[in-house]
C-alpha cells in the first residue's frame, strides 16, 4: 500500500462524482447567467429556419417535404456555433489550466463540460424544434419524431465538436477553423438523423435501423470525443 498523499481522496468514487457534478453545475450556471449566451444557439436556429423559406419559396408542400432536412441542418449549424465558447472562456480566465493540473482525470472533466454544454445549448434546440416544424408545415405527429432524432443525434454533434473546440483553443484559433474541422466529421450524424426522421414520416424504409445507428454514433462519440479532446488540450497547452 502506498503512503497516503493529499490526492488520495480523489480516488474515492463518491468524491469523484461530486467533483464532476460540481463542474457540471458550474458550467451550466455560467452559461445560463448574464453573458453566458445559452439561448443564443436556439435564437440562431430560429433565424436559420426562418431564412429557409426565403431561399426556397413559401411553397408549403415543398417545405413539408424538406422540413426534416432543414431542421437537422439548422440544429447542426446552431450547435456548431456555440462550440467556440466551450473552452475559450475557461482558457482566457485560467480555469482551464486549473482543470488540467487538478487531480480529476482531464477526460472526465472534459466530459462534464461537454454534458453541461449539451444541456444548455443542444437541449433547447430539441425543445424548440417542434415549434419550428410547425412553421415548415411538418405534420404534428412527425414533429415528435424529429425531436426524438435530434435528441438522439445532438450528443454526437456535441462530442465530435468537442474535439474541434479543444484543437482550436490549443491553437488559439476559433471561428471558421472549428467549422472546417468539425463539419466533415458530422456527415454520418446528418445522414442518419435525416434518414430516421424521413423514414418515420414518409417511409417506406423502416425507422429502426437509421435510428439505432444514430444512437450508436452518439455513444461512440461519447467515448472518442472526450479522450481526443483531452489529448488535444494536453498536447496543445503543455
Amino acid at each position, binding site marked *: 500500500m502506498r503512503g497516503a498523499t493529499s490526492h488520495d481522496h480523489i480516488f474515492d468514487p463518491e468524491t469523484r462524482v461530486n467533483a464532476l457534478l460540481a463542474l457540471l453545475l458550474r458550467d451550466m450556471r455560467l452559461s445560463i447567467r448574464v453573458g453566458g449566451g445559452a439561448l443564443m444557439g436556439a435564437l440562431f436556429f430560429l433565424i436559420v429556419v426562418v431564412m429557409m423559406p426565403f431561399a426556397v419559396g413559401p411553397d408549403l408542400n415543398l417545405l413539408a417535404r424538406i422540413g426534416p432536412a432543414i431542421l437537422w441542418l439548422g440544429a447542426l449549424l446552431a450547435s456548431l456555433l456555440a462550440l467556440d465558447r466551450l473552452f475559450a472562456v475557461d482558457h482566457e480566465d485560467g480555469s482551464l489550466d486549473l482543470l488540467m493540473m487538478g487531480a480529476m482525470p482531464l477526460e472526465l472533466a472534459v466530459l462534464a463540460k461537454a454534458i453541461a454544454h449539451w444541456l444548455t445549448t443542444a437541449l433547447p434546440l430539441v425543445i424548440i424544434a417542434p415549434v419550428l416544424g410547425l412553421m415548415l408545415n411538418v405534420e404534428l405527429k412527425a414533429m415528435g419524431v424529429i425531436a426524438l432524432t435530434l435528441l438522439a443525434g445532438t450528443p454526437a454533434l456535441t462530442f465530435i465538436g468537442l474535439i474541434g473546440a479543444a484543437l482550436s483553443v490549443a*491553437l488559439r484559433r476559433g471561428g471558421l*477553423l472549428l467549422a472546417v*474541422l468539425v463539419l*466533415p466529421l458530422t456527415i454520418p450524424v446528418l445522414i442518419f438523423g435525416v434518414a430516421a426522421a424521413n423514414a418515420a414520416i414518409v417511409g417506406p424504409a423502416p425507422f429502426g435501423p437509421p435510428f439505432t445507428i444514430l444512437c450508436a454514433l452518439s455513444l461512440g462519440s461519447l467515448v472518442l470525443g472526450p479522450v481526443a479532446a483531452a489529448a488535444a488540450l494536453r498536447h496543445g497547452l503543455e
Partner: protein
Amino acid sequence: MALIDLANPTRFLRLVNAVLPWLAAATAILFAIGLYRAVGAPDDYQQGATVKIMFLHVPAAWLGMMGWGLMSVAALGTLVWRHPLADVAGKAAAPIGAAFTFICLVTGSLWGRPTWGTYWVWDARLTSMLVLLLLYLGVLALYWTAEDPGRGARAAAILSLVGAVNLPIIKFSVDWWNTLHQPASILRTGGSAIDPSILTPLLIMAAAFTCLFFTLHLAVMRNEILRRRVRTMQLMEAQRFAEAGA
C-alpha cells in the same frame, strides 16, 4: 538501420539524398512502361477510349487513401513515440494525399461526362472521396493557422487519428445514404473479373503512382527539415541581434 537512427535529421537527409535519384528514376521508368501499356490496352466495348482514364483515376484514388493511412501512422509516431521525424512525415503527407485525392476527383468527373452524361453525380464513391478531400483540407488549414510548428503538428496528429476512426464510418454512411436515395441505375454492373490486358497496365500504373508518392514525400520531408533549420537559424540570428543591441 533502426527507425530511431533516422531521428537524426542529418543522417536522414543523407539517406534521402542517396535514395531520391533512384526512386525518381524508378518512377519515370514505371510511368513510361505503364503509360505505354495503358495506351496499348484494348478499348471498352461500351465506353470506348474513355475507359483509359481509369489508369489515372484508380491509382490516384488508392494513393489518396494511402496518404491518410501514412498520416495516421505518422500521428502515432508523433503522439506516442515522439519521433522527431514523424511530424515532418505527417505534414509532408497531407498536401500530397490531398493532391492525389483531387486528381482522383477531377479524372472521375472527366470520366463521368462521357459515360454518365454529367460532370458530377452524388455517387457513393465520388462522395466519399470528396469528403476525404475536405478532411485533408481541414488538416492543411490546421497547419496554416498554427503559429508554432510543433503545436500545429500535434493538433494535426490528433485530427488525423480522429479522421482515421471516422473515415470508415463516413464511407459506410455515404454508401447507405446513396443506396437509399438513388438505386444503382447509373453504374452498370460490369463483370467482376478484370481482363489481364487491363489489369496488368493498371497494376504497373499503381506501382508508378506509389513510387511518385514516395518520391514527392521524401522530397517534401527534406524541404520541411531544411525549412525548419532556416527558421531556427533566423530565430538565433534575431536573438543575437537583440542581445547585441541591448
